[in-house]
């Protein structure tokens, strides 16, 4: 593969987004859990939950900072790396992009207020109310930015004549066919990942021999939330598959190695593909792909061979699909087991193996976010604007994209290392037990 500026622009965009979505996911999901914890703490007058909210918030701020700066990077890189794309599509997507900044603005203002007013109100519930605009702001910005991405997958609300855009309808463009399932999936998967990341911390402390009620309450709260969100994510995933079957069959077909159009198509799990496009070692679930796509075991599913060769996505996205789905199922099972053990007196919810499974759920959920996102993005190759503009037509013609890639790579490595060490140090030097004592005189 030649490293021309198109490939390099793709690499740099991938790099920035791959790094950004880790922090964006946390930024969208964690405020909800903070808010729930504070609410329970206030209602039950329980210092454990109040402390949970406070400590989560402290860690959250550091990740927000990295999320904000990398978000600024990708925002500007859209124009720096894809000027021709922005010139055309910018006329249609600027509305949601603009609204996203408003949502972000709203969130930023209230996050600042929330952070520095813990003890300023006579009634603690006033402070809790400030968490609502943060949640609205972060989820709304996820919503708006996802509509932009959805638009790139199923563009509508304009006509293109000789490279000039006309007859624009911003609302139709925003609420395109991909929007509902994408937004639903992005939001729920952010929530479930955040729940599992916080659960991971609690489970890890219990494994390390911490016995305070604080950790058990943290684990229970995050696992209940994790289970609910994991189930919603599964539903959202199912809706996304149905959307793909209808509007982007080539993505689903490439992800499922489904070559021939047929009725009663099988679902393939795992396996490898050899150079003759023969699938080996795969787990074949008869007629399941048809069912997944159309709720009908005998429905016809369009195969990849029906598409011109230069409009097919790469076939390796099947692996991404598998990893994402497997982890999704794993998260449902683990959180379900914890809840089951917790309810039934016969089992121990703090069993070593279960706790380790929860710990693993944290990083795994982020892996699922990354692979799911790669599946969605690479799955619409070679298009940048499906059906209208190919990736190569949108990329910059400027030189030195390669050097910029290395510059940002170095930046993200440094940020990742320091962010991690800062976060670990913050909490190691100030364990929850001591903080409980001095803050609440428990």
């Amino acid at each position, binding site marked *: 593969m030649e490293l021309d500026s198109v490939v390099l622009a793709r690499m740099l965009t991938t790099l920035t987004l791959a790094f950004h979505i880790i922090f964006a996911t946390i930024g969208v999901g964690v405020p909800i859990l903070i808010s729930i914890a504070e609410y329970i703490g206030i209602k039950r007058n329980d210092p454990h939950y109040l402390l949970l909210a406070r400590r989560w918030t*402290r860690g959250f*701020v*550091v990740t*927000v*900072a*990295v999320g904000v*700066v*990398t978000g*600024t*990077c990708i*925002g*500007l890189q*859209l*124009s*720096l*790396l894809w*000027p*021709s794309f*922005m*010139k*055309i599509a*910018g*006329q*249609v997507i*600027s*509305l949601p*992009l*603009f609204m996203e*900044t*408003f949502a*972000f*603005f*709203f969130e*930023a*203002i*209230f*996050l*600042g*207020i929330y*952070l*520095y007013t813990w*003890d*300023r109100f006579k009634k603690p519930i006033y402070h809790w109310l400030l968490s609502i605009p943060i949640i609205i702001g972060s989820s709304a910005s996820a919503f708006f930015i996802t509509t932009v991405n959805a638009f790139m997958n199923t563009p509508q609300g304009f006509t293109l004549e000789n490279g000039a*855009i006309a007859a*624009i309808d*911003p609302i139709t463009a925003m609420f395109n066919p991909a929007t509902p399932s994408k937004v639903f999936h992005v939001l729920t998967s952010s929530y479930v990942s955040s729940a599992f990341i916080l659960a991971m911390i609690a489970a890890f402390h219990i494994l390390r021999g911490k016995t305070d009620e604080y950790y058990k309450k943290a684990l229970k709260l995050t696992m209940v939330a994790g289970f609910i969100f994991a189930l919603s994510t599964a539903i959202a995933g199912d809706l996304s598959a149905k959307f793909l079957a209808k509007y982007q069959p080539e993505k689903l077909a490439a992800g499922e190695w489904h070559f021939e159009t047929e009725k009663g198509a099988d679902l393939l799990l795992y396996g490898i593909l050899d150079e003759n496009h023969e699938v080996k070692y795969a787990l074949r679930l008869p007629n399941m792909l048809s069912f997944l796509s159309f709720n009908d075991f005998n429905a016809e599913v369009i195969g990849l061979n029906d598409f011109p060769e230069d409009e097919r996505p790469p076939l390796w996205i099947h692996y991404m699909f598998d990893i994402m789905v497997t982890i999704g199922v794993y998260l449902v099972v683990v959180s379900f087991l914890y809840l089951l053990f917790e309810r039934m007196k016969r089992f121990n919810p703090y069993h070593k193996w279960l706790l380790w499974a929860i710990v693993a759920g944290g990083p795994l959920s982020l892996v699922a976010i990354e692979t799911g996102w790669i599946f969605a993005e690479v799955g619409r190759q070679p298009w940048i604007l499906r059906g209208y503009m190919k990736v190569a037509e949108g990329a*910059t*013609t*400027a030189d*030195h994209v390669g050097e*910029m890639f290395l*510059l*940002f790579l170095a*930046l993200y490595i440094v*940020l990742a290392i*320091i962010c991690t060490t*800062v*976060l670990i*140090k*913050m909490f190691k030097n100030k364990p929850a037990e001591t903080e409980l004592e001095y803050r609440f005189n428990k």
Partner: protein
Amino acid sequence: MDIQLVGMTVLWLFLYGYLIVASIDFGAGFFAYYCKMKKQDHLVNHLISRYLSPVWEVTNVFLVFFFVGLVGFFPDTAYYYGTALLIPGSIALVLLSIRGSFYAFANYGSKENKVYLFLYGVSGLFIPASFSTVLTISEGGFIEKRGEEIIFFADRLFKSPYSWSVVFLAIVSVLFISAAFLTYYADRANDEQAREILRKYALFWSPPTIIASLLVFAGLREHNIAHFEKMLMYWWVFGFSFICFLVASSLIYQRKRYGTAFVFVMLQFFFAFFGYGASHLPYILDPYVTIYSAYTNETMGIALVIVFIAGLLLLIPSLVLLMRLFLFDADYVKGKK
């Protein structure tokens, strides 16, 4: 007034907003580092961080707002500037990332870490310098369109005296605006020691802003005579700016009414910035992009204006709340809350 002009004015207003809040922020970071080096940090830094902590994220949004709005209203700018600014834009982004994240690392994580403070304090001075190159490029002469290709002459930019005068003005202004604001903030907090240090900074940086402005005028005359002559047509705007500067500086010098002094600093830059902007019109990028040629289609323009008004209705009360809680709440400023 044309919708294009309305759009540009609104965006320019946001850029002006960014200029003020970011200057306070960037300068404060630099002063915090400088005081640490001079071992005066115990006098000043708690004051600085009390102001900055709740607002740093909001500062960043002003910038995002400006460029998203610019690309939205005038998509052609994405094409020209996007191609030309790959290197300076990326460097500015890296600096911005270092600054934003290390602010959080230094303030919420390791409070005593000098490296973090250094990175966050010094990167703040380079950011206005790197952003100001965009204004320089907008004067034309650094970008050429050959066929379908946009070519950017980085070496010309590097050698241009005009470009360096703009950089100089940007850095000096940041330090002046920031010192003037922090003097006022320290005064509100009844923190005399901090106020005296910051007042000295404000006075120290006040003459250079005027010298730098004159250099920019001279440089522009060499670089873009047409724009220079249009600026002369707006001489009275720049005259107002100068009067505001005199009022502000003399108030600070006489140790009187620091709040009013800062308002005059804001007015000084308001007049200068709008005088510059008005004389630059209709060009966004001389001579390729004007606000008319780059304007998005009518439907989108109207939709953006509607969203903009709706957004402001949401933002202004929130911003007022933020300021009342942290800027105008005497007890908070004094550190009692």
